[in-house]
């Protein structure tokens, strides 16, 4: 382990100050399931952990029909998939938070950490994208908000500047007739990194036509992707084999993956289509 110091922040302002004073070697610490490994294995230069999970805003969860859902960035996965409101109104967040790591990882790992780790294969991010998530960021120059799909910039990198950290993620209240689903392909049953993943949210009109849709795919590009063409293939017509196939083709076109030990380019492109199709069908089932 690098010679890491530890400081516990009790407020957002204190965390900003500690991170600013700490400079480039200071990192926010929430569940630590990525950043402690990075410090130990020296894949990042870290000399100060600023523990942000004792700040009420970072650990909270809040829902109202007017303002929607806000989840503190440091709230651990098990306190998201175990939340009754999340289970009822945002089951797609149960899909993704219940398959990030195993039980012991879910006891610590947070969705904010999954976002800030900014892995192309992050299992939390496609769900946040299709839910139209907004990322609340605090830093030396105050607060700003960034749409989730604009947050990651390349593998392991994001829009956070020096001294900035994510406070929370917010999502609109689900509209009537909407449903969302996240799926991941791995070669075993659990505890693995996605070969490809995908999420879809859609809203159905009373006549069964698609009023609105969002599709996101992961592990097929340097960052998780919002696939606008897939949504366009669905909107304005009833769900049909043709429209679903067109959306799947749009995801295959958008995919620009690499070959690595987890999967080939060809397999990942194929899976982008398969998972897009399945998430559309299962999102529609939830919408019904």
């Amino acid at each position: 382990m690098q010679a890491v110091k530890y400081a516990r922040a009790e407020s957002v302002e204190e965390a900003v100050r500690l991170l600013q004073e700490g400079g480039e070697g200071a990192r926010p610490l929430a569940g630590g399931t990525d950043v402690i490994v990075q410090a130990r294995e020296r894949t990042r230069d870290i000399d100060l952990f600023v523990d942000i999970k004792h700040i009420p805003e970072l650990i909270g969860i809040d829902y109202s029909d007017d303002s929607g859902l806000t989840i503190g960035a440091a709230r651990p996965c098990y306190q998201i998939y175990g939340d009754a409101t999340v289970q009822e109104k945002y089951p797609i967040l149960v899909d993704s938070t219940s398959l990030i790591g195993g039980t012991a990882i879910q006891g610590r790992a947070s969705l904010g950490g999954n976002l800030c780790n900014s892995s192309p294969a992050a299992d939390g991010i496609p769900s946040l994208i299709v839910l139209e998530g907004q990322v609340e960021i605090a830093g030396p120059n105050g607060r700003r908000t960034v749409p989730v799909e604009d947050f990651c910039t390349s593998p392991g990198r994001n829009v956070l500047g020096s001294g900035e950290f994510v406070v929370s993620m917010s999502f609109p209240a689900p509209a009537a007739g909407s449903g969302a689903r996240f799926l991941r392909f791995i070669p075993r049953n659990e505890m693995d990194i996605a070969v490809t993943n995908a999420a879809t949210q859609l809203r159905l009109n009373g006549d069964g036509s698609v009023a609105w849709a969002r599709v996101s795919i992961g592990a097929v590009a340097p960052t998780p992707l919002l696939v606008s063409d897939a949504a366009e293939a669905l909107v304005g017509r009833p769900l049909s084999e043709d429209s679903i196939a067109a959306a799947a083709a749009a995801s295959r076109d958008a995919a620009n993956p690499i070959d690595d030990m987890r999967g080939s380019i060809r397999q990942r492109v194929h899976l982008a289509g398969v998972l897009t199709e399945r998430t559309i069908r299962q999102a529609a089932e939830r919408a019904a």
Partner: protein
Amino acid sequence: MATEHIVVNCNINGESQTFLANERDSLLEALRDRIGLTGAKEGCNNGNCGACCVNMDGRIVNSCLVMAAECEGSEIRTVEGLAMGDQLTPLQNAFLEQAALQCGICTPGFLVAAEALLEENPDPSEHEIRYWLAGNLCRCTGYDKIVKAVQQAAGQSIV
């Protein structure tokens, strides 16, 4: 940059403890090297194997992925806190009767994780047991005997 020793106050296996740790220590290092509780094992040291699993504030965690400094004010339960003296828990007895261990390195983590499962869900299905324990790896006995031991501890008939 040098790090200094820090004082950590927490509750370990029901007893208040104050210990000195290096600021860079993980909870696993503090337990093993500072406090002398060597039940939790270092396997991968990166959160994959579950051999270092302990219960922290009612939830299982990989102690290699917790900084000792984070434990200020926490309640920690380790495998040493399961048995009452010579009186093993039903789960520990079931591990013996089902021969659910061979080399034993993974066993403390499995016991702590499975005890937490049975506290939360006293009658788990086989699928729920396997899913809950997916973060604990065993490389010698195999998983069937471990799953059967958990089923026995839950009072289920074992096929």
